[in-house]
């Protein structure tokens, strides 16, 4: 790629273009292709350099300054995030266990003697139910974190063969879903009322 490294960019491009033109005119397809590849290479060089710099900055941000292979910290970042999901899962499970125990303890109390006791017990029951439901945060935060993990993995895979195929970095596009919408990042999500309205307009 001598043309790419030439200090005088303009004359380098002229050279490449002329060589491409000559190759096309003389019907030398291999040489024409090589010349065009040179041009593409020249064009994508800043992009590649930008990506490599980004990867390094990312590595520094992740506290990996001393290491040579910047991209190696990306799988580690994924592991850390997955650990958060596991940690919140076990904490949620522990909370749900305690809520179950409270329910059992409540059931062991002698029958309520008056309305106030009855109300207190019913109030406790409904609050335990709310506490259980509130543990749903683990699912919601987990979905968001796992989506970021998927993105970081895609970046890592993309950086791995950046010199090879010029595949754009992207999340696998399938029907799997996107997880919860994040305010300020995603489009305004539908609320339960919107969903109800939409479904009833569709005859459901």
């Amino acid at each position, binding site marked *: 790629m001598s043309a790419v490294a030439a200090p005088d960019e303009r004359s380098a491009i002229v050279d490449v273009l002329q060589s491409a033109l000559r190759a096309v005119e003389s019907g030398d397809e291999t040489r024409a292709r090589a010349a065009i590849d040179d041009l593409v290479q020249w064009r994508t060089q800043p992009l590649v350099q930008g990506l490599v710099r980004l990867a390094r900055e990312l590595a520094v941000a992740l506290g990996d300054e001393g290491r040579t292979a910047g991209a190696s910290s990306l799988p580690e970042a994924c592991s850390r995030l997955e650990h958060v999901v596991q940690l919140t899962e076990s904490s949620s499970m522990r909370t749900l266990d305690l809520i179950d125990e409270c329910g059992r303890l409540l059931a062991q109390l002698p029958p309520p003697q008056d309305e106030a006791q009855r109300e207190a017990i019913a109030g406790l029951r409904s609050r335990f139910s709310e506490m259980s439901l509130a543990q*749903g945060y683990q699912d919601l935060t987990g*979905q968001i974190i796992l989506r970021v993990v998927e993105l970081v993995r895609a970046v890592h895979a993309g950086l791995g063969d950046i010199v090879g195929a010029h595949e754009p970095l992207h999340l696998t596009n399938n029907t799997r*879903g*996107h997880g919860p919408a994040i305010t300020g990042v995603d489009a305004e999500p539908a609320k339960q009322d919107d*969903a109800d309205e939409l*479904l009833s307009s569709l005859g*459901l």
Partner: protein
Amino acid sequence: MDKNIKILVVDDFSTMRRIVKNLLGDLGFFNIAEAEDGNSALVELRKAKFDLVITDWNMPGMPGIDLLKAIRADESLKKIPVLMVTAESKREQIIEAAQAGVNGYVIKPFTAGTLADKLGKIFERIEAAA
């Protein structure tokens, strides 16, 4: 409403399966099985007769929308009501689920009241159709 109906709860997060099970228990439903994605749900559905499927959308393996489509495409399963309980909240997704034949759609985070309400609607329709 028959409280003995068999319900399959499908979600990749064990916490959410447990929460939904707890809420169903509060409503008097205790005949509940679990699956962690569409593929294992289909295995369960073919093993025993279920009266209702409550499924998440975003799951590794087979997502909920594909499970719904697989259920509707299967002669022996297609009549089972499916309630989607999901954080997926794009209008196109709700429409896609409706077109695929969903019976109810609950957006996470949800309240116990919303779940009970949507279940009630599903049972009402089943009873009206019977």
